[in-house]
């Protein structure tokens, strides 16, 4: 059998080239060159082909491999051809802005140029697709990688008169695989597997439109039928059921033109038009109208829905099978070219699971989630990202989240999502993450977390919520929380405090927190790095209250020197506001510990009557932005007294007690003090349905004009904040209709007047005050005593002096607090605590006030058993003080009586109120009667001063000491007339202005004081009268010492006047520039001080 001089050829039907039959002769095969080519046996392994000896090799090879199904490279080249057509077709739909075309005209005259080579060797094949297109003119296709600023467009393909389009020889890396998933990094491939069903259908229709156009454009050639067949086959591969659009305009873009203007390439000039509506099968459904739209990329969805991944559309043209273009980067969420958001399960789940070993209920204030399996007494923080909160309500999260504890200790966390499909229907999907032991972070010490107030309300726009967190251990970062609310305008205004190793943080939010974003540190053992685990606690929010509308409420605020009170009235009698326990406890904590810490550092976890508030404030200091940026409750809080021993927590210097009379720092504290108690009051009236309220506050007559101006400014700020935070509209000190005249009159909230209103209105044990026959009210507060003289429902005189309980009662106690232990040994331990502090600062005073407030009654009860000189001396001092007040009140009466403005009857009732009125009980050893020595001595002093004979004094003590002013502010308006004829202060003692003697019932002008023209009459004619009334004598030495003290004080007042005038824009020179501190009172204070000194020395 002859053997051909030829390489190995195929056997069988693959070889149509017969061997030469005769050896030793040349056989002619005129038409079998191609048969010989096809007969060559080619190893099966895929190979690149470089054997076309032509500069046009790439185009020729592409042509050959495309049309020859048996060609080794046919599958690859067909894929490239299809992929290239898809690239053009989807130019608009996929926003392939990187794809451009550029026309080429070969120039054979260009020396030493590649285009000249191409022109020399240009294939002269008459069997082109169309005579109007040849190789002399064609287009190149370019792709520009992003970022465009760093990359130039690069040619990667060209149009071909033989195959319509062709790819270049080597375009690896020139196209973005992210944007074109059917580009495998080296070459384009058949796009069918990378396109979603809808997109395949659309592209198939475009391809069929292309086929129709080619059929129309190209005259009948063999090549035409082959290219049209290929085009149709491609469309069929994309979607076997697709049909050519009856109107090509239905699929052709009207916005994007490729720039293929010439020849047969016109058929490719208009890509597929974009979808008019963006569709997806995985749009995450949320009930939140403002939630961002996310499209879920979850590989398990294919299995969950029993669908091919290609048939689950993510968005636009990206389906689940090609979504790795987004997720390949390792990111869990991002933005698609159209601006839509995509997310994987990693977007929802955290990397670590925070848990507690606590067997109890770790988070009683949170929404419980479904738990399966044995949690081994573990509680968890939901390992969900903060972003989840933007998509779902806590309730939705609660219902969709579950954890299944695995036998190996792992936790399988699931989140069920509702997805909107392209058909408009809803389907559910479950995304999961398993946390093994190594993925869990233990919180060893559960912090205390609570939220105030614990209500949401529809009737007002309440916008003040405080989240308090306190760590019991040094690991203060454990489970740090950040409150989160959906429409919170800005991040929570949080502030961390480190107070005597108490680590706590208060965050302010305008909305009730829906969740707490938790973070806790841990050490990543793999990387040996400190990391932070995060998670969510879903707050079990209170139901929204919709209380019935409430008629106008009146709040009365008595801001006292040592104590303050708030009364309210809407129906019936005034009552003290009761601050209910409105703490929402988030973490499980021992109730006692919880109660203690919240009271010491935040707000008490129990009901609190607003007539039991000491004017004490714990100031945590200004935030870095300054005092104007202070946030109530965050930067300090009212110190509520319960047990004086634990009254003050932390740095004592932060305790402010002289709020009413103090300097700048105290003024700031006073403002925040008022803000808090008003805010708490507002909470109470809000839940009752109040939307508007009257707010009245009082001030002592003793206030200077400057004091009043300051107070008003403070209140303006307080009320302004209050309205913003609570949504309640407040009318401050509104006018009232005079019940007598029917006229609308401005409010008169001077404490002397409001106290009288109390005595007139309150039907307590001592009956209502009858002032028809003349009466005197004495409201002895902590800092001032307000006195009023009434005659037949007419206020004929009143005054306020800066002399009250603090001067009479607290001053001796400050000197010698141990006297209280002497009175009642049961308070000795408390006194010891007090004495430990050493420094007699504001905290000391507050502490002392707290002791009296807490143990006052017990001490009074123990007085009758005490016979010691110390106790006697102490009570004697108290008597002198009270009598001094009585004497000065008597001077007021004398003045109006002398002026015939008052005529005393046979009985003059003196109603004593205020916290200081309790001193009467001290002096009376518990119960004040007419037989009590203090009653007699006080009466004598009063009558002596008033110059009344045959008049009996009847002292009635208030049943609600300290509540009088607050009560009087809100009680019904009484038919009282107020005359100002004798409202001016009196000196109460003779004095000199220069060389001129001045009577006791005048008052030295401020200007004269400033000039130091005022001197007391060293004979003290009035004060001596007072001493005589006390059966005491005044020797020259005493008077001389008193004179020195009074003149010293007048000198000091001179400077104060100067300062006040400096501040006063009107540059007034009247007496109101100063607080009312009559000369008699100055002398009385000096006298009492000497007595205290002596007493203390003896003790």
């Amino acid at each position: 059998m002859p053997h051909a001089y030829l390489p190995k050829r195929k056997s069988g039907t693959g070889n149509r080239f017969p061997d030469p039959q005769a050896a030793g002769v040349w056989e002619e095969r005129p038409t079998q060159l191609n048969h010989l080519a096809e007969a060559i046996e080619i190893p099966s392994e895929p190979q690149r082909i470089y054997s076309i000896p032509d500069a046009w090799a790439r185009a020729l090879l592409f042509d050959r491999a495309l049309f020859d199904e048996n060609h080794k490279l046919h599958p690859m080249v067909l894929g490239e051809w299809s992929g290239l057509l898809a690239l053009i077709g989807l130019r608009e739909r996929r926003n392939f802005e990187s794809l451009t075309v550029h026309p080429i005209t070969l120039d054979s005259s260009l020396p030493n140029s590649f285009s000249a080579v191409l022109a020399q060797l240009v294939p002269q094949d008459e069997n082109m697709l169309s005579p109007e297109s040849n190789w002399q003119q064609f287009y190149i296709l370019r792709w520009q990688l992003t970022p465009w600023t760093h990359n130039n467009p690069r040619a990667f393909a060209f149009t071909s008169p033989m195959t319509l389009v062709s790819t270049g020889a080597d375009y690896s890396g020139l196209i973005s695989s992210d944007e074109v998933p059917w580009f495998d990094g080296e070459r384009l491939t058949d796009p069918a597997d990378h396109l979603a069903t809808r997109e395949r259908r659309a592209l198939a229709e475009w391809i069929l439109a292309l086929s129709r156009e080619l059929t129309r454009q190209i005259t009948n050639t063999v090549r035409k039928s082959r290219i049209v067949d290929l085009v149709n086959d491609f469309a069929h591969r994309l979607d076997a059921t697709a049909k050519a659009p009856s109107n090509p305009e239905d699929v052709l873009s009207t916005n994007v033109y490729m720039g293929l203007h010439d020849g047969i390439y016109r058929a490719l000039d208009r890509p597929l038009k974009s979808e008019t509506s963006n569709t997806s099968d995985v749009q995450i459904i949320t009930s939140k109208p403002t939630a961002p739209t996310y499209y879920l990329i979850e590989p398990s969805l294919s299995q969950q829905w029993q669908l091919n991944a290609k048939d689950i559309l993510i968005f636009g043209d990206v389906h689940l099978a090609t979504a790795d273009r987004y997720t390949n980067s390792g990111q869990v969420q991002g933005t698609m070219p159209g601006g839509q958001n995509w997310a994987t399960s990693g977007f929802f789940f955290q990397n670590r699971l925070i848990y507690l070993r606590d067997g109890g209920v770790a988070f009683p204030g949170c929404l419980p989630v479904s738990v399966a399996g044995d949690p081994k007494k573990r509680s968890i923080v939901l390992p969900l990202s903060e972003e989840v909160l933007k998509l779902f309500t806590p309730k939705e999260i609660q219902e969709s989240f579950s954890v299944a504890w695995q036998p190996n200790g792992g936790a399988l966390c699931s989140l069920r999502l509702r997805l909107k499909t392209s058909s408009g229907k809803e389907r559910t999907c479950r995304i999961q993450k398993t946390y093994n032991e190594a993925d869990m972070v233990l919180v060893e010490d559960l912090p205390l977390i609570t939220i105030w107030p614990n209500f949401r309300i529809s009737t007002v726009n309440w916008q003040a919520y405080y989240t308090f967190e306190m760590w019991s251990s040094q690991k203060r970062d454990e489970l740090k929380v950040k409150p989160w609310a959906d429409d919170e305008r800005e991040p929570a205004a949080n502030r961390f405090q480190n107070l005597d190793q108490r680590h706590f943080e208060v965050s302010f939010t305008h909305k009730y927190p829906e969740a707490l974003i938790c973070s806790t540190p841990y050490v990543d053992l793999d990387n040996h790095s400190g990391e932070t685990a995060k998670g969510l606690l879903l707050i079990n929010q209170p139901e929204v209250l919709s209380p019935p509308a409430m008629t106008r409420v009146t709040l009365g605020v008595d801001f006292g020197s040592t104590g303050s009170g708030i009364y309210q009235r809407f129906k019936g009698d005034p009552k003290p506001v009761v601050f209910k326990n409105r703490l929402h406890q988030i973490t499980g904590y021992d109730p006692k510990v919880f109660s203690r810490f919240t009271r010491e550092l935040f707000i008490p976890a129990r009901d609190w009557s607003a007539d039991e508030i000491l004017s004490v404030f714990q100031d945590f200091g200004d935030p870095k932005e300054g005092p104007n940026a202070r946030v109530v409750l965050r930067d300090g809080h009212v110190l509520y007294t319960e047990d004086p021993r634990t009254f003050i927590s932390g740095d004592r210097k932060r305790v402010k007690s002289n709020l009413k009379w103090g300097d700048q720092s105290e003024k700031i504290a006073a403002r925040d003090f008022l803000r808090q108690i008003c805010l708490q009051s507002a909470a109470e009236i809000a839940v009752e349905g109040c939307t508007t309220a009257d707010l009245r506050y009082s001030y002592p007559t003793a206030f200077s004009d400057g004091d009043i101006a300051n107070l008003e400014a403070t209140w303006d700020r307080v009320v302004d904040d209050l309205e913003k935070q609570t949504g309640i509209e407040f009318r401050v000190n509104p006018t009232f209709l005079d019940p007598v005249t029917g006229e609308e009159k401005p409010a008169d909230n001077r404490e002397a007047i409001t106290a009288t209103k109390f005595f007139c209105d309150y039907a307590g044990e001592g009956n209502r005050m009858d002032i028809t026959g003349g009466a005197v009210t004495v409201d002895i507060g902590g800092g001032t005593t307000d006195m009023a003289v009434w005659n037949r429902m007419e206020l004929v005189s009143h005054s306020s002096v800066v002399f009250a309980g603090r001067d009479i009662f607290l001053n001796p106690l400050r000197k010698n607090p141990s006297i209280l232990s002497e009175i009642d040994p049961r308070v000795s331990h408390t006194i010891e605590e007090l004495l430990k502090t050493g420094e007699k600062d504001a905290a000391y005073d507050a502490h002392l006030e707290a002791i009296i407030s807490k143990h006052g009654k017990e001490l009074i009860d123990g007085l009758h058993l005490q016979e010691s000189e110390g106790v006697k001396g102490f009570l004697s001092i108290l008597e002198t003080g009270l009598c001094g007040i009585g004497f000065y009140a008597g001077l007021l009466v004398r003045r109006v009586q002398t002026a015939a403005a008052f005529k005393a009857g046979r009985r003059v009732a003196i109603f004593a109120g205020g916290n200081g009125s309790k001193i009467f009980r001290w002096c009376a050893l518990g119960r004040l009667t007419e037989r009590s020595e203090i009653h007699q001595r006080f009466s004598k002093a009063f009558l002596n001063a008033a110059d009344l004979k045959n008049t009996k004094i009847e002292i009635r003590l208030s049943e609600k000491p300290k509540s009088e002013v607050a009560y009087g502010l809100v009680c019904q308006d009484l038919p009282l007339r107020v005359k100002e004829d004798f409202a001016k202060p009196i000196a109460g003692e003779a004095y000199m202005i220069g060389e001129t003697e001045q009577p006791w019932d005048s008052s030295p002008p401020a200007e004269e004081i400033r000039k130091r023209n005022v001197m007391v009459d060293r004979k003290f004619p009035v004060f001596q009268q007072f001493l005589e009334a006390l059966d005491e004598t005044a020797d020259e030495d005493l008077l001389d010492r008193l004179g020195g003290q009074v003149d010293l004080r007048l000198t000091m007042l001179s400077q104060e006047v100067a300062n006040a005038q400096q501040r006063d824009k009107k540059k007034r020179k009247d007496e109101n520039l100063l607080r009312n501190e009559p000369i008699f009172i100055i002398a009385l204070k000096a006298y009492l001080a000497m007595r205290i000194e002596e007493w203390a020395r003896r003790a």
Partner: protein
Amino acid sequence: MSNFLVAVGGSGAKLMQSLIHLGAAGMLPDRAPTLSALLVDPDENNGNVEECQNIEKAYQACKQLVKVGKSDLFAAQLTLAGPWTPIVHHQTDTLKEIFNYNQLANNASEEAELMDLFFERGELEMSVKQGFRGRPAIGATVFANSVNFDRAEWKDFRTAIHHSASSAPPHILFAGSVFGGSGASGVPTLVRLLSNNLETDVSNARYGLVLFLPFFQFRKVEGEAIQADPGSFPLATAEALKYYNERNFLAICHSIYAVGEEIPAEMTVSAVGAKEQRNEPHFIELVAGMGALRFFDADSHSKDYSLAVASRQEEGKLTWDDLPCDPQMGGAQVHKLQNKLQKMAVFAVSYHYIFYPQILEALRAGGSKTPWWVDHIERKNVKPDDSRAALAAVDAYTVKVLEWLLHVSTPRRANFSPGLVNPNVFAVSQGQNWRLKLPREFQQVDLARLLLNRPKTKIDDRTVLTRAARSTVKDDTAAGAGRLVRALFDSCEVE
């Protein structure tokens, strides 16, 4: 009528080697025993090209020094030009450098983009100085860019064609491999470009192709990134043949001779170019040479525009009857043609191993008693010293013939038996390799075993020596030492 050969690349050069020997044996057409060849190779130092030039030099030395008269011996009028290299600038090395790619790319030129589209990045940076390494598209580009028919070797070659065309149609044969680099790219490119160029003034040219399909293989060369991959030869061949078909080369070329081998020979030298690329002759080059002879003699015999293929009787053997001839030739003609090559074989062995040792002895001794020395040197008053160079030239050439015959008979492949000549007569094998015997190793009696598969007259040393002793040269055109050579050649007649 003149014959022209454009021998491209290593395979083209090797065909030319065969044609020199066939021409030396008087096998070129009697009416036109001329052949003008132009070697074309991007690597002017290619070993195959160099060997071709060496053989041609040896042949031309004989032609110049030895006047053998009207004989088949050294009958061919051969000219060999080249090698012409398309690498114009010796400094340029890659396509990028040739076309100033970097500068074009920096200027965002379309030219650079076109190159990007039509070549791989590695190809653009591949050195082309030593060939095109299985990348004929690169070669085609380089050839097309550099060939200029009005310059250098091409101008002479074209002029010769033009001149010959006036008397008879010039036969222009292009030869090269289809699976390699230089030949694969140069042959079709030059065919198209030259035919286009000649179209205006040489309308009667006949074009032919000898396409070497795979017949050998070699190992990959270490350290070379881009090189011809023997594994890709079959696919490359198929693609190239398709290309010739698709580009309609049979409309240009009257004949395309395709030759190859099913079992490739293993080449001993593996190099991508330069002198290291010197491949041993292969019998397929002899077969291709037979095709070339037929093309040159084709006026009256071959059909126009055909692919020509041939076969042998046995796969593992090549006999004299397997050398393909025109089917129109009668048996006598075929035998006559075969006899010419057989005679050359006998002459080469006889001259190198029997006669030339004696000639050397006569030259050394100042004379010899052998009749052929006495009759053709001494009696003709030929000065021995004047003959020394001519006789040595003949010996040198016969060595070339013997080497060629040896390798043609011993292809580096398994299961192959010599069928033309017995290599054991004049060569010894050393493992896989063969070498020519030293004269002292040669056994005169073995001459009888030289020609294989010759059923007729047996040629042995006695016959040759006897004929030599009795030979007379009645050709006045033979002169000098040529007369002796002619006499000895005539003594080797095989019929």
